[in-house]
C-alpha cells in the first residue's frame, strides 16, 4: 500500500475525525473526559460496534439485514425466557440466545437463497414477523429477575473506566478480521458476495455461504442485544425500539463510514469498528453539549449521506489516479 493510498483510506480518515471530535468535545463539553463518561461511552460503543458488525456480515453478500434489531431482541428475550421460564443456568441461556440468533439468521438466509429475492424485501418481512411473534409469545413483558451476574457484568470496570463489554466486542472484531483474512470460509464469503456467478463456477457453494453470512449476522445481533440486557439488568421487548428499528441507522453507519462496499465482496472490520465508535462518540458529545436528541438523529442521518458521497468521490479520485 502506497503512502498516498493510506492517507486516502477510510480508516485513516476515521482516526483523524475521532481525534478532532475528541479534542472538540474535550474542550467544549465539561465532563466529556470524566472516567464515568468514558465508561458509558465505551459501553455504548460496545453495543453499537456489535450492531455494525452484524450488518457488515450481511453486506458482505451484497445484501442487507433490516431485521437485526428484531432478531437481537428476540434472541435476548429467548435467553430471558430460558432463565426465568425454564430455569436454565445462565451460561446455557446465553448459548441458547446466540443459537436463537443463528436460527433466525438461517431463516433469513435460506429464504433469500431459495426465493432468489433481494434480502431487502425478505428481511423487511421477517423483521415484522420475528418482532410480532416475540411480542405475542412474551405478551410484551420484560424479564427482570435475571441473575445478578448480568447487571454485575454491565457495571464492571477495568482500570477505572473500561467496560468488559467493550473488550468482548473488540475480541469479536478480531475474530471477524481473522475470519475474513485468514480462513477459507471468510474468503469464500467475500468471493460469493463479490461475484456469485464466478464464485459458483469456481467451486464455491454460494447459497451455503449466503446462509452462513446471515447466521453470523444473527449471532452478532444476539450478542449486541445480550449486552443491552447486561446494561439494563433486564431483557426488555422495546429495548431496540418498535420492530427493532432503533438499530438500523447505527447498523449502516458503522460499515458505510468504515468503507465496506454496499455491493458486497469487500469488508473493513477495523473501519466498521472505528465508524461505529465515531458515531457513539458524536452521540455522547452532542448530547453533553445539550443539543436536542432529535438534532443528534438528524446529524447522524446527514453523516450517513455525506459518508456515502465522500466515499464515491474518493473512489473516483483513486480510479482516476490509477491507485485502486
Amino acid at each position: 500500500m502506497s503512502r498516498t493510498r493510506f492517507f486516502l483510506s477510510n480508516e485513516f480518515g476515521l482516526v483523524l475525525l475521532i481525534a478532532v471530535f475528541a479534542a472538540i468535545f474535550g474542550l467544549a463539553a465539561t465532563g466529556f473526559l470524566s472516567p464515568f463518561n468514558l465508561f458509558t461511552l465505551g459501553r455504548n460503543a460496545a453495543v453499537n460496534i456489535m450492531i455494525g458488525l452484524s450488518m457488515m456480515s450481511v453486506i458482505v453478500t451484497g445484501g442487507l439485514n433490516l431485521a437485526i434489531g428484531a432478531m437481537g431482541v428476540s434472541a435476548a428475550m429467548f435467553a430471558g425466557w430460558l432463565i426465568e421460564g425454564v430455569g436454565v443456568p445462565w451460561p446455557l441461556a446465553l448459548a441458547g440466545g446466540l443459537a436463537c440468533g443463528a436460527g433466525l439468521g438461517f431463516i433469513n438466509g435460506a429464504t433469500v437463497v431459495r426465493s432468489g429475492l433481494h434480502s431487502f424485501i425478505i428481511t423487511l418481512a421477517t423483521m415484522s414477523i420475528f418482532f410480532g411473534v416475540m411480542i405475542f409469545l412474551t405478551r410484551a413483558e420484560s424479564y427482570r429477575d435475571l441473575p445478578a451476574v448480568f447487571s454485575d457484568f454491565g457495571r464492571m470496570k477495568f482500570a477505572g473506566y473500561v467496560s468488559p463489554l467493550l473488550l468482548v466486542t473488540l475480541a469479536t472484531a478480531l475474530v471477524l478480521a481473522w475470519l475474513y483474512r485468514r480462513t477459507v470460509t471468510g474468503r469464500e464469503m467475500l468471493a460469493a458476495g463479490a461475484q456469485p456467478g464466478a464464485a459458483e463456477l469456481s467451486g464455491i457453494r454460494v447459497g451455503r455461504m449466503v446462509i452462513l453470512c446471515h447466521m453470523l449476522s444473527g449471532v452478532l445481533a444476539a450478542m449486541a442485544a445480550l449486552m443491552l440486557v447486561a446494561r439494563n439488568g433486564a431483557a426488555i421487548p422495546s429495548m431496540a425500539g418498535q420492530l427493532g428499528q432503533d438499530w438500523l441507522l447505527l447498523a449502516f453507519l458503522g460499515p458505510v463510514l468504515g468503507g465496506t462496499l454496499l455491493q458486497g465482496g469487500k469488508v473493513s472490520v477495523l473501519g466498521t469498528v472505528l465508524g461505529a465508535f465515531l458515531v457513539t462518540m458524536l452521540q455522547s458529545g452532542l448530547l453533553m453539549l445539550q443539543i436536542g436528541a432529535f438534532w443528534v438523529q438528524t446529524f447522524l442521518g446527514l453523516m450517513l449521506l455525506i459518508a456515502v458521497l465522500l466515499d464515491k468521490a474518493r473512489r473516483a479520485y483513486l480510479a482516476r489516479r490509477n491507485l485502486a
Partner: protein
Amino acid sequence: MMTDHPLFEAQGIEKAFPGVRALKGVDITLAGGSIHALLGENGAGKSTLIKIITGVHQPTAGTLRVDGEAVRFAGTRDAIARGIGVVHQERNLFPRFSVAENIHLEQIGASYFKPIDYAELNRKARQWLEPLELDVDPAMPVSELSVAKMQLVEIAKALSLQSRVLLLDEPTASLTASETDRLFAILRRLRDAGTSLLFVSHKLEEVQEICDRVTVLRDGENACDSRAMAGVTRGDLVEMMIGRAESAASGRRRAADGAPEMLGLQKVATELGHRDIDLSVRAGEIVGLYGLVGAGRTELAKAILGKFAITGGETRVAGEAVRIGSVAEAIHRHGIGYVSEDRKSEGLILQHSVLSNAGIPVWRRLAGAMGLLGDGKVRDAVLPYLEKLEVKTPSLAQSAGNLSGGNQQKISVAKWLAAGVRILIVDEPSVGIDIKTKAYLHDLLRDLADGGTAVLIITSDMPEMIALADRIAVMDGYTITGVVGNTGSYPEMSRRIMDLIHGPDAAARTA
C-alpha cells in the same frame, strides 16, 4: 466507387491519460464509399482512437477534420451532428423499448410535453429497417430480437442519424457465419451508397474479405496509415500488429486413441432440453464442440458441471458413472474445471486480487485445521502457474479488473492449472483477447492435453477449432448431430461441419 476526397481525417492525434500515453501521434483518413479496417492488439489504442473520433474523449494534441474542415467535438452529440455514427461492441439498446423507439431515441425528446405519434414513429423506423432487409415489426420490443437483429437495429439507428461515417466495433463478435455474411452484404451496399465505414475486428479473415483499406495501430502509433488492402497478406497484417511474424500454427496431431476416457456422456438429457447427447473425451485429447449461438453448447458444459440437472442417460468421469449434484462437487471431487466465455460475471471476481482469483479452487485443499489459510500458502500454490502463463501484473494484490483481457484470460486458465484438474472445459477461449495471447493460449491448451488433461473446447471461431481440436463434435438444437475427426484442412472441415448443422442440401445451396 471510392472517392478520393476524404470524409474524415485525423492527424497527429495524441491522447495522454494519467501515467499512460495511449496515442502518440496517430493518423487515419476515411474516404467515402470505402470499408476501412482498424486493427491492433488489445492496448494498441484502437478503443481510445474510436472514442476520440466519436467525441467521448478529447485529444491532447492533433486535429480532426470533417470534409476538410477542422472540428472539435466537445461530446458525442457534436460528433453525431457531424455525421459520425458508431455501433459499439456492447449492445447500446434499451431491451424493453420497441425497435422504433430505440432507433429514434435521440429524436423522440424534441418536445417535453408533445405526445409521441407512434404511427409516424413506426413508419419512419421502417424506412431505416427496409434497406437493411430487416423484417421486424418496429413496435416489437428489442428484447425479443436475436443478437444479430439487435445489431442491425443499432446500424439502423446510426443511419437514421444521417451518419456518413459509421464505426463498427467488433460487429461480428456474437454473430454466426451466415449472419455475418448477411451483415457483410449490407455493409457493402452502404459502402456503394457512399458511406464511409470503419471496421474494427480481431478476425483477420473477415477483415481481408470485406475491407479495402487498412490502418494498423501498435503501441499507440501507426504501424500503417490508411493503405490499400490490395496486396496485403494475412501475414503482413499480423506482422504489423505484433511487430514480428506469427509463429507457424502447429497443427500436430495427438495419438489419444488408446488413452482412457476421462469424460463420457451417453444418451444424456438435461432439464434445459438437451437430448441423446453422446460425447467422449479421452485423456490427452482435445475435443471441440462446434455449433451456432443458441445450439446449447455452454448450457451443456454447465450441465456437465452440475449447475443444471442431468435428467437422463449416463455421465462417466474417468470410467466411473457419476451423478454430479453441484459445481463444487464437479470441481473438488471430480476435477472438472470450466473457463467461462463471460469473464466479467462468471470467470473472475474482478474487484478481488489476482492472487485471490487464481487461488479460489485450491483454497479448500490448502486450508489447515479450522479452515486456516494464509496468503503465503496460496501464493506458493498459484505463483508457478501465473509465471508459466506470463501473467503481467504489477503485483499479486492488484485487482483482476485492472488487467487487460488477455491477462485476465490467462488467470482464468491458470487457476485450473493450479487446481490440477483432469478435465478442462474452455468456452470461447479467445474471446476479447489479442492475437499474441491467442497463439500463446493455443500452445498452452495443446501442452495441457499432451500432459494428459482431457480438454473440451467450445468455440464459434472455425479456424480456432480446426487449429486446436483432434475431433469436432457438432451441436445443433440441443443435440449432437455428429462427430468428425479433424484433418486440419479448413475447406474440408468447414464443409463437413456445415453439413452436420444444415444438412448436406443446405450446404450445397450456400456453396
